């Protein structure tokens, strides 16, 4: 065991992992955060706690991770490269570990221009690849990036993101290979809507032997409305939403669109359960946390195994 986190145990035991996501509040509204987390309790193996998502200031991800833990859900502490230099990153990793956090997701972070402080200085002292390597070095060698020994190194299960849809497509699997080489233990992908693409990408990863070394969890986001689908297609960088998805949502009665969105998500999850090289799925029900119990039920991933 690298970290002994619940996610690591679930994967090691060969279960199909099911992870969720919670965005911390835009303030110190602990009650709102506890409520969001409560919908995930018992329904997911771990919840990602986002880090100043879309470059908007929120409660810090490690602090929200601790509240998540108090509520009985294992957190996945997200860390972006935009807001901290290597000193602050390592300090926060030690602090998070000291408080019981065992999973991390290493990300570049959305550019600061998208958020509510576009004048801020983006740090990007390290990039996400280098961050992965740093956490691995801290864990496996017990050394800081600068080379000094760590007095009780943090045992962290290291997560990374992948976008299997961006151009040039043939490069995507090599980027995954780089993340494996850097030391990532699991991958959560960009929201998947284009199943054809992800099938190809996973099969390339299988051919390169990468899926033996890393657990891949494709990202699932149920569409709430046609508007949301169009917005994601046209406005969110790096998102690949095929027209069929939009047509399918348009094809049902207005009141049934959200239900159809969940149906599509469940069909995707069913396919991933059978797909060689896929170890689970990551559900990003954005501002739809109260729907997670229903989605988990309909996706047939309950009850979550105790490990």
């Amino acid at each position: 065991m690298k970290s002994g986190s619940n996610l690591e145990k679930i994967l090691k035991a060969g279960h199909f992992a099911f992870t969720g996501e919670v965005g911390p509040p835009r303030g110190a509204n602990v009650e709102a955060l506890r409520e969001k987390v409560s919908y995930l309790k018992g329904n997911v193996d771990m919840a990602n706690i986002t880090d100043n998502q879309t470059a908007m200031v929120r409660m810090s991800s490690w602090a929200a991770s601790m509240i998540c833990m108090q509520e009985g859900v294992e957190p996945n502490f997200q860390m972006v490269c935009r807001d901290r230099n290597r000193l602050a990153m390592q300090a926060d990793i030690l602090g998070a570990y000291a408080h019981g956090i065992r999973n991390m997701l290493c990300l570049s972070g959305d550019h600061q221009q998208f958020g509510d402080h576009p004048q801020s200085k983006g740090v990007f002292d390290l990039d996400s690849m280098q961050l992965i390597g740093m956490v691995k070095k801290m864990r496996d060698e017990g050394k800081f990036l600068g080379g000094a020994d760590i007095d009780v190194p943090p045992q962290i299960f290291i997560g990374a993101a992948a976008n299997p849809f961006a151009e040039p497509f043939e490069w995507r699997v090599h980027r995954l290979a780089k993340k494996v080489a850097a030391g990532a233990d699991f991958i959560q992908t960009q929201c998947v809507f284009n199943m054809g693409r992800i099938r190809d990408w996973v099969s390339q990863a299988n051919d390169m032997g990468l899926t033996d070394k890393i657990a891949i969890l494709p990202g699932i986001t149920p569409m709430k409305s046609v508007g949301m689908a169009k917005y994601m297609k046209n406005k969110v960088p790096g998102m690949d939403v095929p027209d069929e998805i939009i047509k399918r949502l348009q094809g049902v009665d207005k009141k049934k669109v959200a239900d159809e969105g969940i149906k599509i998500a469940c069909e995707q999850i069913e396919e991933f359960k059978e797909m060689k090289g896929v170890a689970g799925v990551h559900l990003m029900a954005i501002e739809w946390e109260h729907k997670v119990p229903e989605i988990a039920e309909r996706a047939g991933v309950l009850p979550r195994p105790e490990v």
Partner: protein
Amino acid sequence: MIVAERKPFDEIKNMVSGYKKVLTVGCGTCVAVCLAGGSKEVETLNAELNLAFGKDKIEFGAETVERQCDMEFLEELDSKVDEYDALVSMACGAGIQFLAERFPNKPVFPAVNTSFIGVNLDVGWYEEKCRACGTCVLGLTGGICPVTMCAKSLFNGPCGGTNQKSCEIDKEQPCAWYKIHERLAGQGRLDQIIEISPPNDWSNQKPRKIIQPGYEERVKALGR
């Protein structure tokens, strides 16, 4: 070259108001090429200032030296500066500071915003190319700078936001890592970026000096 753009007129006006005799100093090198601070721009600025203040309120003089980042050329101003009670520099930040160092008793005001190290795409059109990071990786990245051309200065890009061929920040801005891949693929050199680039040494985070080999003794003798 160093690319700069003139500051908004009102900002310059506010800085010099209250002085009686002001010398506007242009620079004949980079800022002249990028049409921000050469002799022509000195003339234009002085004309605008004269119009705004009226000739009897503030008297504006004009001088343009070859390079403000070189004491040899600043020396030419020694005999002229005394009669002025403030200087406005239209050079880049380096030139402005050297002018201020040469005449430490005079207030020196910047008339341009020094913007970047870049290239001339066409007359009046410039693009940033280098952030002077101090550890150049262009040899690995197909001659495209990841520090400057990637909005997140990633050494192992692209990020998840890469959007067809564009950067996530703007459809009009090419994704540097898309271009790096494209160029290296064309040269059959993709192996260059399969290796992980280690954390960068940001040596541009402290004031830097360079003494070229063979000049150490000379520098010592100068005592600077």
